[in-house]
């Protein structure tokens, strides 16, 4: 169980996260939505320990979160891989760090689940499509079976068809592996379709936190309603009611 307790992040005089708290249980999916600049990326950094918190703490089962080795799927799949190394080399890093060798069966299963063809991993990140690179990114995140996986705008670099396909793969893998997923996205349609809960982040604060179905049907705050109606207008969200 991930618990984020009253964390704040300051950079100089500006506060980028203000007293943020929420919990996320194993096997559940939380989507954090908000506009650019709402502090979504900072939140990811703070949870992973990449950005120091000025107050509050983040724990997994009451121990510091770093100990559970959370994984991250990044927005830009190409830059998440060292251009000089093969995708295989990068994808196996979490196992190398734990001094274990990849279990061929598990690797095979993940590759099948992510629809990664066998010879793809021997290529370099610049030699594959962005969608393929993102799927290898997900492979890297899942290879060491972490209990918590963070997704930072996992779909935004992909084209529309690949987006749907990748979103479905993530959901299926989560169903099988049972990790807790925290998905940061500006795409409310994606959040509503795949997440159990939705947290709306605005100017560094959690504006609204609700079950995703409840949120789509009836947002409790004005800002939540604005976001939802904008998503309706764009056709990104289907009317559930």
């Amino acid at each position, binding site marked *: 169980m991930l618990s984020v307790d009253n964390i704040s992040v300051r950079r100089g005089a500006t506060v980028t996260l203000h007293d943020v708290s929420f919990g996320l249980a194993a096997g559940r999916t939380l989507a954090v939505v908000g506009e650019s600049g709402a502090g979504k990326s900072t939140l990811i950094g703070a949870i*992973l320990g*990449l950005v120091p918190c000025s107050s509050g703490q983040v724990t997994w089962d009451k121990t510091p979160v770093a100990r559970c*080795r*959370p*994984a*991250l799927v*990044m927005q*830009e799949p190409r*830059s*998440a*891989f*060292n251009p*000089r*190394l093969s995708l295989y*080399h*990068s994808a196996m*890093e*979490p196992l*190398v*760090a*734990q001094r274990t060798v990849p279990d061929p069966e598990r690797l095979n299963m993940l590759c099948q689940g992510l629809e990664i063809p066998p010879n793809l991993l021997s290529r370099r990140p610049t030699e594959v499509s962005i969608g393929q690179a993102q799927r290898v990114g997900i492979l*890297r995140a899942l290879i*060491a079976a972490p209990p918590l996986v963070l997704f930072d705008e996992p779909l935004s670099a992909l084209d529309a068809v690949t987006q749907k396909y990748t979103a479905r793969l993530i959901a299926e893998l989560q169903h099988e592996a049972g990790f807790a997923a925290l998905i940061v996205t500006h795409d409310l349609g994606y959040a509503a379709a795949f997440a159990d809960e939705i947290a709306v982040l605005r100017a560094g604060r959690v504006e609204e936190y609700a079950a995703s179905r409840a949120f789509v049907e009836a947002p409790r705050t004005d800002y939540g309603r604005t976001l939802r109606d904008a998503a309706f207008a764009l056709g990104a969200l289907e009317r559930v009611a």
Partner: protein
Amino acid sequence: MRSVIVLVTVFVLLALVGPWLAPHDPTQINIPNRLSPPNAEWLLGTDALGRDILSRLLHGARWSLGLAFLISVIGLAIGTVIGLVAAQGGKIADWIVMRTTDTFLAFPDLVAAVVIAGVLGAGTGSLIFALTITGWMRYARVARGIGLSLLNRGYVVQARLAGLSPVAIARWHYLPSLLPSLTVVWTGMFARAILSISALGFLGFGVQPPMPEWGTMLLDARIHMRSTPLQMIWPGLAVVTCVLAINLTGDALRDSLAEADQR
């Protein structure tokens, strides 16, 4: 560019096989034949003790180039490690490393090297120590600068999240990116080391006689400048052509890297 590579290759070969090409023993003293002008037997003449200058030059290549190579490579290793520690070790480590680097940069290298080599006593060991300890800072600065710029790259963040050790991160993600720039710095430092070794030799704090080193040879030749001025030309010419060839290689390397960057 091609001619420069040829020149450098010739020097490297000379340093490697020079001693076997030498027609005479470089330390063989032959007083009756002292200060002989160049002739068929002694191609570049002999020095004040009657030793063959050509043989001394050829053996000297091993001292001057070999020591310079050794010194610049040790500096490269030390500087890179220090620079990467600064880049990866957080703010406090970075501050300590950068102030230490500033401290070592606070003297002109040659003055510091003269003091260190002189105080520790003349000899090859103190020469190497003096020039290494005054020669790692440039590498450290470059390694740190590039290291800091890579720190927030996606793949470095991923490697840290995966729990890869700093050494493994340095090995796989930093060093390959550092290598081109460090090589350019290294050529410059190699050339500097050649100049510094011969400068220390000329001041009497470097390689000790009777070992033939170009700076020491120049020091010997200086006394007989009036009678045999040619004797003074050769070691200097050897230093200048070596340094020039290495510097030009460095320039060419830097230009081709800049081109590769733009592409």
